[in-house]
């Protein structure tokens, strides 16, 4: 089926199998491999994106459900040479080990800080409860959230 969606500010069309997920459409049809494909059951958060401004797992959205809607992926966060403050913070504190969970976590953290610029630790833990890091780098990730929150509040 033909799916037309506004992806990162641009109207794009993809001819996908009707049963395909939005994640498959982004990665395999639209050349946007930033959202990672891991569990395919909404457990790991590696494919976190925004659909009409809401944080979702792209693997649980049927591609057709994104028709005529707005999709925003991790690729939209940085502008060429300039990283998003959340990306900067992840780099600076070393919140990246193998890096597979990183794009999903960065999207989830950016979503959190948009909704709540000063989250306390329980709020951060709850907001990131749907993102798994198999390298167990959670402490550094929490540090990165604190740093990003400070920087974004200061701007």
């Amino acid at each position, binding site marked *: *089926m033909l799916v037309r969606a506004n992806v990162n500010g641009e109207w794009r069309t993809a001819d996908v*199998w*009707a*049963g395909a*997920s939005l994640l498959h459409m982004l990665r395999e049809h639209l050349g946007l491999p930033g959202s990672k494909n891991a569990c*395919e*059951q*909404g*457990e790991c*958060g590696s494919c*976190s994106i925004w659909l009409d401004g*809401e*944080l*979702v*797992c792209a*693997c*649980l*959205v*049927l591609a*057709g*459900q994104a*028709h005529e809607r707005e999709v925003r992926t991790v690729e939209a966060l940085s502008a060429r040479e300039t990283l998003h403050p959340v990306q900067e913070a992840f780099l600076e504190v070393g919140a990246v080990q193998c890096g597979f969970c990183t794009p999903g976590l960065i999207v*989830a953290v950016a*979503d959190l800080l948009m909704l709540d610029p000063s989250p306390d630790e329980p709020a951060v833990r*709850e*907001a990131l*409860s*749907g*993102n798994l890091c198999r390298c167990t780098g959670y402490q550094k990730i929490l540090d990165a959230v604190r740093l990003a929150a400070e920087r974004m509040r200061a701007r």
Partner: protein
Amino acid sequence: MEVLLPRTLEEALEIKAARPEAVPIAGGTDLMVELNFDRRRPALMVDVSRLPELREWRRENGTVFLGAGVTFTRIIRELPEFVPLVQASRTVGSPQIRNRGTVGGNLGTASPAGDALPVLAAYDAEIVLAAAGGRRRALPWHQFLVGPKRHAAAPDELILGARWGIVRGPGSFSKVGPRNAMVIAVASLCLVMDEGARAFRVALGSVGPTILRAPEAEAFAVRALADAGAWDDPRASLSPPALQEFGERVAAAARPIDDVRGTAAYRRHACAVLARRALAWAFEDRRSTSRSS
């Protein structure tokens, strides 16, 4: 395989009338997993996530109607007065899942572990079903949920939402699982205390083929409160032996099985613990409400 994207409820119902095999998809948190793992290949799916009629909730004459497409995130944000429902919604998955998952999905999947279902059972909700041509009917929750992953909607019907009478009194939802997030309940319990009708309603999830109520425990709590003269006294509580017996009676209503998430014995034990806690919390809530008013 084919996907249709109706814009209105009537369009969606006409699709269901013409092709009753069409499988509705809303948040996709259940159905997409089956698709991704090739466990299911429906010939036709209908996207119900854009139907405005399913995305609304409203109060009407002492009742509330909750559209099948209202997500758990919206319930938490927009329906704070329904404490057990909000508590149950907060235990669903993760933020990503709560942004997509709906009460209609819990009803359509009809798993005994659906987190909103014990709340609907404790609210004595009815499930509103719609078919083409303006046909509507409502089924009490226990006539709708007929077995594990089985419900009573006809093939040409869609789940419009749930409706229940608003009651005055405390209530809670609690759930046992290995983590605070992303957990399918091992056991769950919703208790609602109806001060107006002087009634208790207790519903159990994940401990039977479908959601179960605990009528003997409910009647016991009503009698125990009456015997203690506690209905008129918001500071009253029940004795530890009475709480104990309440827990045992709730556990007796469970019909659990052993499975990968837990044993039947553990689940029964968990029901007793959750029940005692829920009743104690209800008394605490009454006390703090009476202090503040």
